[in-house]
């Protein structure tokens, strides 16, 4: 099982564009309207989202994650599980993430594995349509950009009683990390675990709701006292040790680079490439050129790595949702070099240009 398609329509920043297509006669009143939705075609391997802040990378990860949660019958999608809770804490009104500005007022995201389909219509209380999706039981892990395990003490007990100011994805990561470890470890995962263990100089344990890194010298470091970069790697270690990355599962990781020393980026790329080789479909959102580049450089023939670039289009549409508003354009490429209008690389290049110009001036 792998997610193959995502279509987003008129949701958050992904506003539908009402383009007027003209025939040979270019008089404006003789055109007809075509609505453009945003369609992503994913690879079975590693899908990397790049794009400036606020463009919707995290939302895409959350849409995929929310859809996977709805693949479990026990979650009673649409009733026990409210999809808007995955986007932000305390959203009571779906209209906050959908856009009502267009005449047809539809706003949805659609996800498919090529065979089964899931569609969530955001507006009007949220209606779920699906074709064979519920019952697929897609195992997915979402790692948020902010570290959560430091808050684990009593968290789950509190969460079951009170409404805590965290979205579902943030809560789930504590749930997943708190699961018991598997009796046996798959041999290929053993290698990955020992690689991470080497980097954090130990293993992750949980005692009385608290997570610790048990160092090789026997010292226990409380998660909140551990360096945040190590916490990030430690979380990954624990999730793997809990047997959550089986063949056919999905990992969604928002900004793996946050709080991580850049010298760790190659390690992260190696770990994720190894997971991908073992049948895990991976989606990451990143702002780091270095991290993104490591995937390009370290991938082997058998690895599938693709970049999905989201950027604000230079075209200003007369017939966009709000007149004069800049909309988004999508680009997909197997090489960073081939992505046009790549804000992440442009920032690095601007710095290098400044260094070059400054050097000349000195």
């Amino acid at each position: 099982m792998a997610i193959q398609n995502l279509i987003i329509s008129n949701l958050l920043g992904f506003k539908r564009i009402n383009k007027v297509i003209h025939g040979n006669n270019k008089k404006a009143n003789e055109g007809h309207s075509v609505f453009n939705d945003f369609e992503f075609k994913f690879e079975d391997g590693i899908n990397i989202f790049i794009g400036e802040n606020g463009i919707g990378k995290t939302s895409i990860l959350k849409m995929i994650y929310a859809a996977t949660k709805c693949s479990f019958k026990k979650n009673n999608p649409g009733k026990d599980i409210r999809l808007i809770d995955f986007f932000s804490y305390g959203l009571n009104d779906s209209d906050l993430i959908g856009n009502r500005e267009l005449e047809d007022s539809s706003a949805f995201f659609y996800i498919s594995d090529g065979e089964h389909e899931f569609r969530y219509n955001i507006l009007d209380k949220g209606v779920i349509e699906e074709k064979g999706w519920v019952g697929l039981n897609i195992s997915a892990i979402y790692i948020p950009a902010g570290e959560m395990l430091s808050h684990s003490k009593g968290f789950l007990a509190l969460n079951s009683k009170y409404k805590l100011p965290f979205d579902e994805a943030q809560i789930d990561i504590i749930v997943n990390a708190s699961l018991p470890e598997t009796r046996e470890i798959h041999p290929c995962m053993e290698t990955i675990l020992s690689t991470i263990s080497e980097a954090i100089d130990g293993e992750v344990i949980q005692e009385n709701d608290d997570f610790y890194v048990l160092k090789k010298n026997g010292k226990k470091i409380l998660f909140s006292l551990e360096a945040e970069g190590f916490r990030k790697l430690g979380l990954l270690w624990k999730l793997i040790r809990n047997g959550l990355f089986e063949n056919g599962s999905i990992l969604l990781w928002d900004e793996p680079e946050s709080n991580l020393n850049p010298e760790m980026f190659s390690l992260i790329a190696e770990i994720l490439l190894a997971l991908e080789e073992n049948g895990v479909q991976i989606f990451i959102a990143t702002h780091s050129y270095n991290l993104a580049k490591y995937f390009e450089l370290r991938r082997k023939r058998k690895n599938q790595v693709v970049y999905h670039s989201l950027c604000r289009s230079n075209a200003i549409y007369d017939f966009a949702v709000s007149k004069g508003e800049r909309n988004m354009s999508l680009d997909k490429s197997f090489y960073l070099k081939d992505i046009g209008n790549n804000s992440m690389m442009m920032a690095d290049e601007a710095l290098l240009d400044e260094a070059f110009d400054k050097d000349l001036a000195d």
Partner: protein
Amino acid sequence: MVLKGIYEDENHRTEFDFSYAVNVFEPHGIASRHSEYISDVDFVLESKDEIIFIEYKNVSIAEAHNQGAFIEKIKNGNLTKVLIKKFFGTLLIVLMTNRNPHKKPIVYSCVIEGGKKIDGVMMKKLRNKVRSGLPFDYEKIRDVEVPIIDRFELMSISDWNSKYSQYPIRMK
């Protein structure tokens, strides 16, 4: 038959149309005598206003393993050293042969197609490293009376063709 002012790379895959240049000189004949010690660029082109040292490298048409080797050369700094040495060697040859009697400013231009994996950021990192090893400060030395280097640029074929459209480089 190759027309006057039209040059080819050694693999006959690229054509350099320098027919509008004031003069073009291939320094390799001289450098080959001491190739162990002197490196040189592919062409020295004299335009109306400048002397341009042109070094051309195209890895995108090479085998995949060569592209890997090229990345390794960038990583270990060998390519930086090679490009800097080529400048110094060519400068020596130009001075020895009095190819710049009118003391035109010298521009060093590396035209590199590095393949799919060499993106804009990597090109600019390489550019900055090479630039830091070039003798931009020599002309400040009191006894130096000839132009040494005025400008360094590292670019793709497409950038070259935009900037120097009168001297186009074409893939055959």
